[in-house]
């Protein structure tokens, strides 16, 4: 099973994500702000990072940018409830990916979350495959 880091400033959201992902059989680490998230990412390897975008302190965009630079094999999923300052509705047509591999708009449903997590982990596995398989064959 995969190891996933969730970075989210709203505790109930963080908790609900942890419950669902743990229920999906994953190992979940939690961070309540961007800096903490990046620190965890330095300390251990994650297959997937799920990060909120609009957070106090370091924004999700910065977290994803720096995180991807320091951990290129890790997949990044941005989750957002919309920009609190612009009133621009996130919609299918005008989604920015915030530098992430994928985006989910809050509130998303459980099956949507599990589907996209599975897809990103499959990508991560495919990207890591040559390195992982080499010792097995030898």
């Amino acid at each position, binding site marked *: 099973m995969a190891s996933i880091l969730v970075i989210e400033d*709203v505790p109930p959201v963080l908790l609900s994500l942890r*419950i669902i992902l743990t229920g999906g059989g994953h190992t979940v680490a939690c961070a309540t702000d961007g800096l903490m998230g990046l620190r965890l990412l330095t300390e251990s390897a994650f297959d997937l990072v799920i990060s909120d975008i609009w957070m106090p302190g370091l924004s999700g965009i910065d977290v994803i940018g720096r995180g991807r630079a320091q951990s290129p094999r890790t997949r990044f999923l941005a989750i957002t409830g919309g920009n609190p300052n612009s009133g621009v509705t996130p919609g299918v047509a005008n989604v920015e990916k915030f530098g992430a591999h994928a985006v989910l708009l809050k509130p998303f449903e*459980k099956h949507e979350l599990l589907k996209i997590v599975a897809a990103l982990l499959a990508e991560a596995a495919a990207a890591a495959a040559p390195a992982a398989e080499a010792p097995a064959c030898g």
Partner: protein
Amino acid sequence: MTQPAAIPDNERERIARLRMLDILDSDPEVMFDSLTRLAAEIFEVPIALVTFVDTRRQWFKSNIGLPGVTETPRDVAFCSHAILEPGVMEVQDARLDARFSANPLVTGDPGIRFYAGAPIILSDSSRLGTFCVIDKIPKKLSSAQRMILAELANAVSHAIETREATANTQAARQQLENELAATARRSHLLRATIDSCPIAVTIADITKPGATVLYVNPMYTTLTGYDADEVVGHDCHYLADNIVGAETAAMLRQKIGSGEQAEVEIFKHRKDGSAFLSRLILAPILGDDGGVVACIGLQSDITLEAQRRDATGQQREKMAALGRAMGGIAHEINNMLQPVSLLVQDTIDNDRMSAEGIKHMGIVLDCTRNARNIIGDILAFSRPACRSGEFHEAAHILEEILPLAIQGLAKGITVSLRIGCPTGLVEISRTKFSQILVNLVSNAVSAMDGVGALTIQLDEDVLPSLTMPRKAARLRITDTGCGMDATTQDRAFEPFFTTKGIGQGTGLGLPLVYTLVQELGGIIALESVPGDGTTVTILIPIAKES
């Protein structure tokens, strides 16, 4: 024998000069006829002629004694010979002259025996024809008579040149008169145009210290209340410091002085003291030397336009502020809905509920989805304007979307669609058009409470504008519902204002339509009579012809 005369060396120039006189085949003229009549008397001959030798004929400008004859062929003409002679050519008896003895004019009618002709030589030496006298009996001229004949030819050539000069003068005068008439007509038209112009026009001589007013059109009087004679000859107001302010006046003078056009909006007072906002455009008139000599002022009253503009601006600002506020609200609510959605679903999935509990949780999940959709709607109308790049024939998109908008309509409501003449292409996305139509139809239907007539009408119209009116598609949605009173109409575009019951509408339908129409560069208007129904009219500019 008949010997045709030789062709003169300068024949081409000679013929060209002759044609230039515009005399061939012209009517008889007294000055020539009196000379030939005089010659017939002096020389005591029956025939006296003024002839011109043309390419193939000799033509008689004046003719005494050969009634009905206007010309003879050149190859039998005595004059063809005479124009080659330095002076008077005299044939005393044609029957004895080898050149003419067999000439049909000698052997037959008119039976010429005597011929004397003096060449008509113009001042540029071209020999065009002769002055000649002819008799049917042989004759001999005295030297005095020869001199007189030469003088008569001389007189004719003077007459021809005088005649030509007069004709030229007349032609020139005629041309001048035509030009003057055309100029007068043009300036009359121009004046009529300026007089009927719906813009107040002033012309001021800015070479004078106070910029003396030279002219004002009738609209100026209508706009300001001042008659032309109260203004013309006086200093020009709009360049005066005490009227427009020293700074504006200096700016206007500087711009005009350097030959540029200037535009300002200034408050002005009419003769009766009432104020209006004037849009003043000043355009310099340049003199021949390139310097500015005068200045045209074009003024229009934009008080109402400015009020509308301000109102629109305020409405737009209000919308933008609300949009920003809603962004924050949406962010918070979306976050709060997130655990509800995830945890309820997870609880159901993990079989931690009784059957009834699962049913209840299903309701909670439905509510969560609805809440998410409402937030989406709330934000939709504060979306920043962006061009869709989608072009649709107004009638086509209306026919396409209308079925979606009226699906599930109560049986008691009849729908009629009327499409007038083709309107052209509007730039609008399918989504936005649906949002507009669905909201307007939904409002109309709610107003009718299950019974009534819904009419949707599309026609061509013009989007009013002072500067650039544009063709527009006009969509009218009329219902026979309860209508709106004045207070409701005033608040109809206000976000969250709703007349529907709690839970039946967000109060965002019309504000959303308003915002979308604004983004498209269109306008929206409501007409409503309580108890009779409401008509919503929107004008969307035509982007291209279809």
